[in-house]
């Protein structure tokens, strides 16, 4: 049972990095996981088309919270165009644990919210 959720993942769940919301963000987007009603709100500040600061307010399962936490570390200084291209594979690699098909939505919730926020910001 224990090997499914590695220590590192549990650490990100218990102590999520960049947790909360930024004031006066350039990007602000909330999304819901229709499976369980979990919510995530992403806020980010952009300078020169790159993420300068990012926070996730994610309340959910270990997979979704850890994914948001790990993403927040990875995404600093990434360009919006790079983030738009990110997909399942990168998030799954980042998590480093097997994710069943039913849990994909949990794993991808935060990235999808950020991507929608970016599209909104760019008016696309």
């Amino acid at each position, binding site marked *: *049972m*224990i090997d*499914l*959720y590695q220590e590192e993942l*549990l650490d990100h769940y218990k102590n999520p990095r960049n947790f909360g919301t930024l004031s006066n963000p350039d990007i602000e987007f909330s999304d819901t996981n229709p*499976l*369980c*009603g*979990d*919510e995530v709100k992403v806020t980010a500040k952009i300078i020169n088309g790159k993420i300068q600061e990012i926070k996730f307010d994610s*309340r*959910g*399962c*270990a*997979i979704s919270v850890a994914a948001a936490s790990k993403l927040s570390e990875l995404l600093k200084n990434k360009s919006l165009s790079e983030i738009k291209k990110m997909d399942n594979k990168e998030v799954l690699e980042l998590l480093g644990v097997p994710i*069943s098909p039913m*849990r994909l939505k*949990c794993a991808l919730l935060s990235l999808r919210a950020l991507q929608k926020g970016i599209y909104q910001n760019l008016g696309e």
Partner: protein
Amino acid sequence: MKQIKQLDIEKIRNDFPILSQKVNGKNLIYLDNSATSQKPQKVIDAITEYYKSYNSNVHRAIHSLGEKATLKFEEAHEKVAKFINAEKEEIIFTRNTTESLNLLAYSLGKNITSKDNVVITEMEHHSNIIPWQQLCKRTGAELRYIKIDKEGKLDLKNTPIDNNTKIVSIAHVSNVLGTINPVKEIANIAHKNKALFIVDGAQSVPHIKVDVKDIEVDFLAFSGHKMLGPTGIGVLYGKKEYLKKMNPVFFGGGMISNVTKEDAQWADIPNKFEAGTPNIEGAIALASAIEYLENLGMDSINSYVKDLTTYAMKKLLELNNITIYGPENGDRTALISFNLIGIHPHDVAQLLDKEGIAVRAGHMCAKPLMQVMDTQSVCRASFYFYNTKQEVDFLADSLKKVQGVFK
């Protein structure tokens, strides 16, 4: 007192081929029965026999296969009717409870105006909320909710039912709280106010002997797949005096008595509500499922599952840091919703799956109830007559293990 026949669970389990398999290297412990039950060989055989030996469309077939299919399909109406103490013409086959309730919302909705109100409860499944919500949006009628108390029972002292209530629609058994609602009492309140009384029997008909005359219900909706039948076959029972007056919702083949270029007249009930080629093998297999249930005896099933639920409640209450929803004792059956404090239901379900245990995790299609309960989601273990105390013990032990992972 009537003697209740004891069930031979070991023998019964052999009737369900799916139960003997391993999941993730562990014996399957299937505790997601409120979502859908497993199927005995007898029901699987009924489906394959239909396709192997008499697959044919029903009605208007003047050949041997068609006659047999029609006969079996008609018998299925009769079997379902007897099972709930109704008459054959009062049984409409639908896809499921959801479709049955939508059919009602559309057909009965024709008589609803902006002066009227529709009453449901805070513990309804989305299938018994949204059809009425949409009806009220279409007509300007008001949607009212009977509230639940802290224990998870309906507050019947202060119901919003009044003279302008046209429809009262409630779940017999809550799919989240497990509460068995006092339907007869509510029928009484509804009828005193001249409202129609509808019961969502999705969670009750598989477990409790439901007699439509006894509970004085005008309409009853339920699904075949939660009571050993296949998916895609559901039932709408309606009192014939009402069904006869109601307009059909779906139009096409099989539901007419005459058609001209300009107009059409409807067939008798129940056919006028069953447009198009029906789920023939589903109906036949549901009849077979009912035979299986009746052979065990609904009283035996109810008593066994109630005992098992009580046992599970005791075992789960022994755990630390657990929240259990719904009444602790008494009027409840078949399922327990809970949360391990600080651990998300998805994580609980995922880790239990590693132990071969299937439970459900999420909002249970009851988001308004989740709000009342002040939670986003829950885990739900739900039982049927093939589950055992040993399985419940293993569930409790595994939940302790889950807590260990998150320590």
